[in-house]
């Protein structure tokens, strides 16, 4: 059994993907605009809250508490959900989850399912498994619909289609929705999606959702959304299946008071998102009469076992770290090769794969700390990035040239005598490349720096050489 995260194991190195993306003017333009919009909105609604830091503290502590007692809360959730008429399944990994879900859909003799946004389902490649079994999944979140119809991949946790512009979306809809005409005005595009999906909401008997929160003391699920497709999927079909990562648990219904304040403000910069749906098991005469929860591990217990990285699981998928990240800003989400992009993706994606793949992701950061500043549950992402870099090196997955260079550097920095020797060598070696105190080009593939920036040449006298001279002088 092994856990996987979408196609991340086959994704190119971050540097390779980024190289192309920084040259893509539409992506860079769209990403900058999207992140600027949400950043500004977030800043405004956060500034309104005199108790924002206290909410962050409590959010952090609540999640840390859950992780300390996760076994208890999982069992409590299962008990309460079952008592209310739900059925709880457990999946050790992606394949097992897919097998369970496909089985449940097949048991309904259903050939179609409607889906509410759930990145967890992308993680386990659920749509591929469904299609293999002859079942057609329809994404109903507008951005996920755009990505699905465009046969594309999501590039942001909250606004997955931000790399597309309206002309492209219009073309995708014209092609895939069998329309003869359609303007590219956002209202008309949204209107086309409304019509296309409405008949499915009213007809398709099986829905698959994720969960923002799974509440242990009541056995309830909470879905947070803006468009109304969530409400449609969780209340109209006959059968509902919710795929829930085991880290989504919160202890009590009351704890929603923290997260329902911090999540909308962080994710979309709103005081409250348009719709939240909370339901428990099955309710006679209202909504699905068969309800299943699939609790998913898929590598999460491995993250839990790493004391220094455990708080990765505290994430409530708000996307604020993506919007704050100056690296994400230049590349967008596709560079991360995973549905989990940006800072949280850089720590979550490799860990879910036991550091077997995506080893370049922990290095996709300048460690600036902007993510930590905005995280509503105070995950110390920079700290975890450095920790994971340590794991990459420990596992022997660092590039050979880098290992050699770091070894050499460690020798140099070991003593003033070594530093002195290296300096003397450096002054000789640099001579051919220095003009006006500056090096414009380094040879032999050393030009990662100089291809973009000048490099200051080593001055003829180091600080300590000056100091020694000065001391000698003053001592007569």
């Amino acid at each position, binding site marked *: 059994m092994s856990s996987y995260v979408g196609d991340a194991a086959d994704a190119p190195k*971050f*540097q390779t993907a*980024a*190289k192309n993306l*920084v040259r893509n003017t539409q992506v*860079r333009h769209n990403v900058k605009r999207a992140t600027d919009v949400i950043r500004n909105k977030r800043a405004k609604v956060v500034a309104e809250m005199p108790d924002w830091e206290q909410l962050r503290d409590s959010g952090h502590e609540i999640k840390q508490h859950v992780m300390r007692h996760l076994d208890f809360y999982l069992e409590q959730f299962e008990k309460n959900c079952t008592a209310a008429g739900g059925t709880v399944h457990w999946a050790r990994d992606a394949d097992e989850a897919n097998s369970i879900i496909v089985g449940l859909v097949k048991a309904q003799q259903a050939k179609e399912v409607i889906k509410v946004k759930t990145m967890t389902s992308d993680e386990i490649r659920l749509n591929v498994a469904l299609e293999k079994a002859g079942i057609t999944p329809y994404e109903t979140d507008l951005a996920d619909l755009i990505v699905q119809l465009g046969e594309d991949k999501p590039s942001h946790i909250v606004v997955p289609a931000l790399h597309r512009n309206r002309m492209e979306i219009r073309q995708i809809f014209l092609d895939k929705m069998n329309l003869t005409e359609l303007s590219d005005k956002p209202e008309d595009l949204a209107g086309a999606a409304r019509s296309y999906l409405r008949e499915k909401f009213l007809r398709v008997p099986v829905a698959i959702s994720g969960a923002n929160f799974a509440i242990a003391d009541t056995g309830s699920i909470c879905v947070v959304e803006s468009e109304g497709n969530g409400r449609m999927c969780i209340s109209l079909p006959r059968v509902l299946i919710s795929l829930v990562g085991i880290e989504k648990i919160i202890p009590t219904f009351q704890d929603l008071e923290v997260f329902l304040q911090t999540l909308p403000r962080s994710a979309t910069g709103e005081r409250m998102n348009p719709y939240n749906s909370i339901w428990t098991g099955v309710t006679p005469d209202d909504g699905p009469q068969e309800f299943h929860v699939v609790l998913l591990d898929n590598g999460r217990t491995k993250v839990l076992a790493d004391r220094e990285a455990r708080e990765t699981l505290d994430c409530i998928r708000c996307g604020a770290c993506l919007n704050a990240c*100056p*690296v994400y*800003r*230049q*590349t967008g989400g596709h560079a991360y090769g995973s549905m989990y992009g940006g800072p949280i993706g850089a720590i979550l994606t490799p860990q879910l794969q036991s550091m077997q793949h995506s080893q370049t992701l*922990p*290095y*996709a*950061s*300048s*460690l*600036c*700390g*902007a993510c*930590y*500043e905005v995280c509503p549950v105070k995950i110390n992402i920079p700290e975890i990035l*450095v920790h*994971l*870099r*340590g*794991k*990459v*090196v*420990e596992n022997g997955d*660092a590039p050979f040239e*880098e290992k050699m260079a*770091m070894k050499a*550097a*460690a020798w140099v*920095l*070991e*003593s*003033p005598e070594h*530093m002195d020797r290296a*300096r003397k060598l*450096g002054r000789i070696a640099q001579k051919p490349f220095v003009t006006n105190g*500056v090096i*414009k080009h380094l040879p032999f593939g050393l030009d*990662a*720096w100089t*291809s*973009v*920036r*000048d*490099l*200051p040449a*080593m*001055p003829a006298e*180091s*600080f*300590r050489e*000056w*100091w*020694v001279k000065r001391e000698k002088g003053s001592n007569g």
Partner: protein
Amino acid sequence: MQISLFITCYNDTLFPQTGKAVVSVLEKLGHSVEFRPAQTCCGQMHYNTGYQQEALPMMEHFLEVYRGAEVVCIPSSSCVAMIRDHYPKMAAASGDASIKRAVKNLLPRVFEFTELLVDHLGVTDVGAFFPHAVALHPSCHSLRSLKLGDRPAKLLGNVRGLTLVDLPNSEECCGFGGTFAIKNADVSAAMLSDKIHSLLNSGAEICAAVDNSCLMHIGGALSRQRSGMRVLHLAEILASRDGLEAAK
């Protein structure tokens, strides 16, 4: 007061003038500066790149070198952040009681240069003269790890003749990030492009910061692009008595 200077490995080799400026400022304020020659490196580059084992001896060496120092002054906020944020953790992980003790003992006496001036020496006017327009780039470590706040700006604000201009999007990372600048050169360059853009829009002649690491990266692009703007460590501005000539 005897102030012990930790020049930092890269300042020692590439930016000795910053160290000279720090010495000049502190001596003019009437303090004596010592330079312990056994000093090497705080270990940040190795630690942050994932070579945490290699950083351990560097930490031990640092602790050894500064044993008994009254106060340690460091003109580099990233090195101070390394020491403050990570030495306690590394010490705890080593399990060595004497290392833990040494860290606990030394840390309260380690200061970044502007922290030393403003907090410890109570000085915000060092009597400098520097008649130029300056934009202050708040390096990420100074902003988010050390939370230097307005200390650098206060110091620059009291420099005669200096105009401190607003830097748009100042809090955005410049893209240096240590080995990030090499390992992720394309993204580093893209981030640098945005920073240069903000700087050139600010109307400044000089970009100043408390870290030569950022300045090396920013200055490298400013010079490559023949932008007409240069970089200068804040210490060198504070040491200036006669405008830019001394800094050239």
